[in-house]
């Protein structure tokens, strides 16, 4: 997927197809190469690569339940990947998707367990919305601090991640703790059935929401004035300022939307998978958003296959561990190499923390060998 660099850049049909091919040929080769390296590593450490990969595949796609597991694992990654990618477009590095996701997850849980008697058609969306808004608020903090005090968003989001862990730990072990007599761990009560997200066949509703979110993010970025402003600020904030864009407002808004997406990811995880907030159950999902966004080349539609790939490896890892006795961390090694090979031949002139310079480059992704 080539990122349209100039706003309003549209190609004709044939070029589009060629671009799609160029888009998928790179990841395809990358996955194969990374798999090969993983196989060598497995062989060296005395495991059977074919057996391991067979089990991995079976665990990820081998049955309707396996596919459901893959979709479930991919869902939060799409949300957090979109969150990170969205912030990237505004020239912001949101390492804080993790914290925003946790806040969204626990607030959605609170709305889910504390309100009784609402019909599902109101309760579930309400919990999602408030979870997302909580994430948005939490994401807006680093945006506001950046614009008003100059505090670097990377520092603030890292600190807010730790603070989010502490806040959620406190809530789950304090005021929002599950009061049932059998409970001894830190966790919130189970959410009401009316707040749960249903599954259609083997397709979780949360996954469909994630796809919709990707479309909306693309639409906002490439078809609205706000998106244009966000991308312009991301490319060159001084030029944006000069062109009359309110940079401060744009940065805060971009961080809030990024936080909203991450918070929504947490809410979907709570309402569709865990059904309560429990510390540790969402560990790392926000950080994986960085991987997902980079693997998807920070494009809203690129994030989806990236998340599916990572989700599939996660879904299959337990099966692989069970069948082939291979530690599931091998999938992390493979992920690292996939990312490496996807990026290795691509000159993504992505500049963080850059200042105004004359030879400002547009953000572009170039295909494998292209």
């Amino acid at each position, binding site marked *: 997927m080539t990122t349209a660099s100039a706003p309003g850049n549209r190609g004709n049909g044939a070029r589009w197809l060629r671009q799609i091919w160029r888009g998928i040929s790179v990841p395809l080769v990358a996955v194969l190469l990374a798999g090969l390296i993983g196989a060598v590593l497995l062989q060296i450490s005395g495991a059977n690569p074919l057996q391991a990969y067979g089990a991995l595949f079976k665990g990820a796609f081998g049955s309707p339940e396996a596919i459901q597991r893959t979709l479930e694992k991919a869902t939060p990654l799409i949300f957090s990947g979109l969150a990170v990618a969205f912030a990237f477009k505004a020239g912001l590095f949101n390492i804080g998707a993790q914290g925003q996701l946790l806040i969204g997850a626990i607030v959605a849980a609170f709305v889910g367990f504390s309100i009784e008697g609402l019909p599902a058609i109101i309760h579930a969306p309400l919990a999602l919305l408030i979870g997302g808004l909580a994430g948005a608020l939490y994401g807006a903090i680093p945006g506001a601090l950046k614009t008003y*005090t100059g505090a670097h968003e990377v*520092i603030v989001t890292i600190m807010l991640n730790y603070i989010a862990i502490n806040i959620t730990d406190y809530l789950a072990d304090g005021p929002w703790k599950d009061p049932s007599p059998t409970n001894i761990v830190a966790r919130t009560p189970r959410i009401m059935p009316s707040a749960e997200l249903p599954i259609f066949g083997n397709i979780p509703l949360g996954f469909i929401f994630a796809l919709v979110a990707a479309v909306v993010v693309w639409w906002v970025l490439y078809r609205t004035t706000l998106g244009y402003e966000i991308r312009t600020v991301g490319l060159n904030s001084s030029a944006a300022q000069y062109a009359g864009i309110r940079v401060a407002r744009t940065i805060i808004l971009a961080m809030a939307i990024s936080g909203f997406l991450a918070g929504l990811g947490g809410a979907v995880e709570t309402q569709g998978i865990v059904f309560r907030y429990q510390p540790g159950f969402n560990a790392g999902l926000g950080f994986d958003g960085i*991987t997902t966004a980079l693997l998807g080349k920070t494009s809203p539609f690129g994030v989806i296959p990236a998340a599916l790939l990572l989700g599939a490896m996660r879904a299959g890892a337990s099966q692989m561990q069970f069948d082939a006795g291979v530690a599931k*961390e091998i999938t*992390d090694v493979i992920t690292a*190499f996939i*990312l490496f090979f996807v990026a290795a031949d691509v000159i993504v002139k992505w500049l963080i923390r850059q*200042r105004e310079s004359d030879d400002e480059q547009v953000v572009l992704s170039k295909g494998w060998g292209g």
Partner: protein
Amino acid sequence: MELTAPTTRSAATGWVFKNKWLLLIGAIVVGAIVYAYATNDRVTVAVLASTLRQSTPLILGALCGLIGERSGVVNIGIEGQMLLAAFVAFLANVYIGNLWIALIIGALTGALMGALLAFMAVTLKMDQIIGGTVINILAVGLTGYFYTAGLVTKGKFAPISLGPLADIPLIGPVLFNNPPITYLAIILVFAVHYVLFHTRWGLRTRAVGEHPRAADTVGINVFRTRYINVILAGAIAGLGGAFLTLEGVGSFERLMTNGRGFLALAIMIFGKWTPLGAWAGALLFGFLYALNTQLQFSGVGLPPQLIGSLPYLATILVLAGFVGRSRAPAASGQPYETEG
């Protein structure tokens, strides 16, 4: 930054005036420490010693980050470099049984990861954020995959008392009775400061990080400068990782860096890409962490999780209130391409 005229020296009074806030803060800190020591010497020494220990992996990671960025290479893979070095150093300690050899192997592991980052960033001209992320995931994967529970450590570094210096009240037990990696970290702060700002190599490094084209024009090898800096920086991060397994905890646990590499990144920005500034940041953070432990012990009315947030909250407040805007080296993050 004194980049344009690194050799100009202002008069002593000018220096005092220029650094009046720094001196004022320094005076307040010293006063507070003396007052605290007079009130409760035992706790004060414990907190300050803990401050230094907590800050050690952070300052090592931050030094790694800033050396890289000064030469134009963003390194968000510090976390991974530290994690892998911690693991390999631990294995070396288990199988070889010599802490010093294990320390060297830890540093070499970091250097190797630095070389990988340089290869991706300089040679492949890969996006540097992706390069760092590759290292982070790779380290999580490799350490997780090869970790086997039940390996028994062969001990850890003991404090080395520096003779009569260690007997000075307050300063002695805090500064002169530490394990080796902590000493090494302090020495490295000043060494890196000296090299970056007072040697030809440092000037060249900063030139490459600010304006590689100009540096290239006057005959500085941009690629070579970046490679060497990023590899050396990796070795320093490796020391930070080795600190965890050889000096701090003594054994390895999965994901034991626990975000310290990212904290180091934050501290580097906090210190505005200078070794001394980063050290101040690392010490501040170490202090807040030590204070935090004391508060948990003394049982103030607050829940422990909220006390646990204080170091991070305080960092944000200090950053937003006093430090403000920071500027990265101009060419940081940009691959360099030669002309023609």
